[in-house]
């Protein structure tokens, strides 16, 4: 049998199984994939253990997020060092993005004042990684603090910067400078505050941007800006979350008692598709998810390729007294999975997940498999809960 024939059979099998994956009652099985040792080297994570201990004591999380790309590689974001590190499903190191220590030339010569020839280096002053995303071309988008800039790296891990002529003038905007310039034009603000970043299967980039201006029409609610793969601004999209196919989602807030219970879905072009009622199953106690009579606003919303929706809630691990810093840096996570029509599918409880500054370190891949990271004494352990029907 030729390779081509086997490939065709594989494709047919995937096609046949696809509806089943979405429709079937999911059954998750726990599996520890690999452990990434603590250390400063590119293929390790964080720093020396005693330094991490100090960091945990100060309440600074090590990780900023986890991501699974379409190749099945698992990427971990390092919060403090502004790096994303990729590993294969087996734990083999792939590469690091953002691994570039600041050089003196990257920094301004004097504090608070830039020399005239300074044209900006995207990673200058970056103090923390908030979130990150990666498209199918391998281009990475690292959302960093301060001032929530999105540093763009190409597939080789090199930062994408504007083109500057020999005389120092910018003649083509690229990367974050291009994104930011357009956002400033669209929002009429100096500092667009980016809260989240996503990529879809067409390599479009989505940023959740809040409007910090004092204008009367300004709202604290973030809105989603869609950019093409060349980072040209396409438009504003409704909702607050983005699925892998570019559909956006947002909780309808028609009345206080139904907050979070209705999820509106919009096409990639921003057209309203549907609003589904997320109906909790009777066997789950209302105290588990309710807030003032409806669904509480979850810590995060994840979507898989079948448009199944995962509501992620987290709680601190146990109560004081706490003696173990590694345990203290974790949270317990509850995930409620709903079908695209709003039917409850399952609840997944993860007793120990690495805490980050925002969403717990949990991701779903396009098949709906759940990946999460947890801190151990020697390294970060990556776990995986797969459905039985995973191809």
């Amino acid at each position: 049998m030729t390779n081509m024939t086997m490939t065709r059979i594989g494709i047919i099998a995937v096609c046949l199984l696809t509806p089943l994956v979405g429709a079937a009652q999911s059954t998750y099985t726990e599996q520890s994939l690999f452990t990434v040792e603590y250390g400063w080297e590119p293929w390790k994570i964080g720093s020396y253990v005693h330094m991490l201990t100090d960091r945990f004591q100060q309440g600074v999380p090590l990780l900023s997020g986890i991501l699974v790309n379409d190749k099945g590689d698992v990427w971990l974001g390092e919060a403090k060092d502004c790096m994303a590190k990729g590993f294969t499903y087996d734990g083999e190191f792939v590469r690091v993005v953002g691994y570039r220590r600041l050089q003196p030339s990257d920094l301004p010569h004097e504090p608070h004042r830039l020399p005239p020839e300074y044209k900006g280096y995207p990673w200058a002053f970056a103090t923390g990684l908030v979130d990150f995303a990666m498209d199918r071309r391998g281009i990475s988008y690292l959302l960093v603090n301060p001032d929530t800039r999105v540093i763009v790296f190409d597939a080789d891990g090199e930062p994408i910067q504007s083109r500057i002529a020999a005389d120092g003038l910018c003649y083509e905007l690229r990367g974050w400078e291009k994104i930011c310039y357009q956002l400033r034009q669209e929002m009429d603000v100096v500092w667009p505050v980016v809260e989240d970043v996503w990529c879809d299967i067409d390599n479009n980039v989505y940023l959740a941007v809040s409007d910090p201006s004092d204008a009367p029409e300004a709202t604290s609610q973030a809105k989603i800006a869609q950019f093409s793969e060349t980072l040209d601004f396409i438009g504003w999209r409704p909702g607050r979350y983005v699925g892998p196919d570019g559909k956006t989602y947002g909780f309808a807030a028609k009345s206080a008692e139904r907050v979070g219970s209705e999820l509106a879905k919009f096409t990639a072009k921003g057209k309203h598709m549907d609003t589904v009622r997320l109906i909790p199953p009777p066997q789950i106690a209302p105290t588990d998810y309710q807030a003032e009579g409806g669904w509480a606003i979850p810590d995060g919303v994840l979507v898989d390729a079948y448009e199944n929706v995962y509501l992620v809630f987290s709680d601190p691990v146990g109560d004081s007294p706490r003696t173990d810093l590694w345990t203290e840096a974790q949270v317990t996570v509850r995930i409620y999975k709903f079908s695209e029509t709003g039917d409850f599918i399952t609840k997944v409880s993860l007793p120990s997940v690495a805490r980050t500054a925002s969403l717990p370190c949990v991701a779903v891949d396009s098949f709906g498999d759940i990946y999460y990271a947890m801190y151990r004494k020697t390294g970060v352990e990556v776990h995986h809960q797969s459905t039985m029907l995973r191809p």
Partner: protein
Amino acid sequence: MTLLRIGRAMLLFAVVLSGVASFGDEQNYGELQNPEYPGVMLFSIPYGSQPGQVGFRKLEHSEAAGPSHVKVDRHGNVWLLSGSQVKAFRRDGTLLRVAGRVTRSDTDQAEDARSPLEHLRFIRKYAIDGRGYVYFTGDRPLTHLFVINESNEVVLSDRDVYGNLVQVRGEEKMLWQLQRQFGHEIAKACIGGLTGPLFMGTDEADHLYLLADAPVQDKERSGTEMCFYEFTPDLEFVGTVPGYYMGPDGYTYEFAAGNTAENVRLHTYDREGNRVRTTRLIRPEGPWPGCSRPVFDWSHNIYLPCSSKRDQPVAVVPGVQIRSDYNVYKYNPDGELLAKFKIPNPPVHRGAASPIAVDEDENLYYLNFGASELQVMIVETKKYPTSTTTP
């Protein structure tokens, strides 16, 4: 490549005008009743490097950057180029303004070192508009096209603390638009690069025109090598305009070979770039080997400066002087030769500049090197007969 094209264009200009000069002796096309109307001194400026002075006292500096390039703004003020500065004088000779690299006191040296004009040695070309904006290019390879506002500040893009563009302005704005529309080569031909624009001027609407290599599509359509790139006062790119010379009302002009050896044609284009007139210019009396850039007034009269013989310029204090016998021939829009004005020993006009200027009242201005002062000369051309030729 750009240098070659500019050289070719200038050669074409020389060839066309030498055709004017070589009109046959056997047929007399015009006889001037009074061939040499005299100019009178408007005011004089002492030589020196002080603000109210022009030129240098040392010959080595004078060779490179002696006073030259007289222009008159819409308020009647006279502008001169001197070294790294452009100076404006009222009609009584009092200094009005100095734009360019200003030498500050010792205490301000550190501040001066941060100026974008820090490395500017000599200004090569400049233009002024009615608002008091000054545009000029420097003498260095990869030079800049500086935009100076009415407050003598260099107009630069706004950047955030990371060096990212907030609002693109000035030279960078022009470069950016040209790059986007025509590519990098054209953008650099117009803005900076090795040569910068061949000529720049403004019209009564304060639009800026840069003469540079024509885009490929224009070359293919009209066969022209050079064209004007027009910008609004806010430096928004308007489009390309055919022509090689421009008048104060935004009309542009271009020489072409005549239908016989005894004449030359002058195409006139309106503000939209439509050809509105083709004038046949007949030769004045005598041989006519060297011509400089003509200027035009609001009535579309043509002022063509030419020398009767080709001599090497001579370096004197405070500049470089042309010893040739220079005359300005004034034609009306129909090509009728009106008058001839003698310019004795004008300063060298570097690049594609003209040694003369004309104001709204059709007064002709030129410079004359005196023993210890620069004389700004004026000829009230309207006082002379409107037609002095006898066809």
